[in-house]
């Protein structure tokens, strides 16, 4: 009879532990898979400019068909990374950097950039970066940098594409 409370307590403790551990581990696991898949498809530490998303081409959940995406899956294990984003006049655009836990580590949009290019260095706390370069420190090696550009229509991609191809990311 004395075993029953003990077993119930073990069940509850195990349940709470399993629940919390799964929720805590999920973002890192999902981001790891996303970076891995992107790296296999387009490589690490380089910016890739993808065509406007369609039913057939969607690779991530909940993509926006209104946006032209450029992405740079990165790994800072070998050193810091430089990201340069060219402004697209007359359009909403932004650069966002997502860390290994899927949190937003950095966002800069067209209004904040005031029509100027964005240049930032992504680095771990222990990695030095050139002075004069805006520095974004990350708590993990891996993540994804994403450039979003609003298109009034899908046809606008022809005019936007040559400009966004000036945006890049590369090891420093």
């Amino acid at each position, binding site marked *: 009879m004395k075993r029953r409370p003990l077993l119930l307590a073990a069940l509850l403790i195990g349940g709470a532990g399993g629940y919390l551990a799964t929720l805590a581990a999920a973002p890192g696991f999902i981001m790891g898979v996303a970076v891995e898949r992107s790296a296999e498809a387009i490589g690490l530490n380089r910016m890739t400019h993808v065509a406007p998303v369609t039913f057939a081409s969607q690779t991530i959940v909940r993509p*926006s068909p209104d946006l032209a995406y450029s992405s740079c899956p990165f790994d800072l294990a070998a050193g810091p990374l430089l990201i340069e984003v060219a402004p697209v006049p007359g359009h909403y655009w932004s650069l*966002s950097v997502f860390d290994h836990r899927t*949190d937003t580590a950095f966002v800069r949009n067209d209004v904040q950039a005031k029509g100027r290019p964005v240049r930032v260095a992504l680095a771990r706390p222990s990695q030095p970066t050139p002075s004069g370069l805006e520095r974004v420190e990350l708590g993990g090696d891996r993540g994804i940098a994403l450039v979003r550009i*609003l298109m009034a229509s899908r046809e606008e991609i022809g005019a936007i594409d040559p400009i966004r191809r000036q945006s890049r990311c590369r090891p420093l």
Partner: protein
Amino acid sequence: MRTGLLVALALLTGLAAGAGLAIAQMRGGTMGGEPIGGPWTVGAKVGTAEAGLLTRATVALRGLLALPPSEARYLNATTDSAGAALDGRCRYRVKGGAVEARWWSLTVYDGEGRLLDVPADRHSLGSAALPEGGARGWQVALGPGARLPTLPGPFELTLRAYHPRGTLLAGTATPGLPVIEKRGCG
């Protein structure tokens, strides 16, 4: 010895059940379950370090790379304004007015957050195509063969509001969000 084995089994069973519950909640969750007006819900701290465990995990699964609220609000509807689940076999009218944001768009997804296999990839409409229309506002047809087409089965609507202002930015009750009216089914 036998008690120890039973305790270990109970712990393992609990672990598995807890993990299963967490996965079910993530899969069944939306981009944030806090009501903000009508059928719309929002995740108050999506994309930020302040997001809770469940919000962060759900967004990672169902809306990876979501922006923080200062940049964009993601409102989600899985029901119409009368509370009935959105059904791709039914016809709806979505009506609205000014949205407190720099620009916004409505996108149709299936229950897993994927775009539908609809003609001409017509998945979204937004402020660029739907001028606010003064006092009368704007409206758009949603359903099989409509301007914003659906396919049979459950679906979701996501309202993206970039550079939100006022209550939309705060993530608190926002009056005047789009109304989703069912017009008929089948």
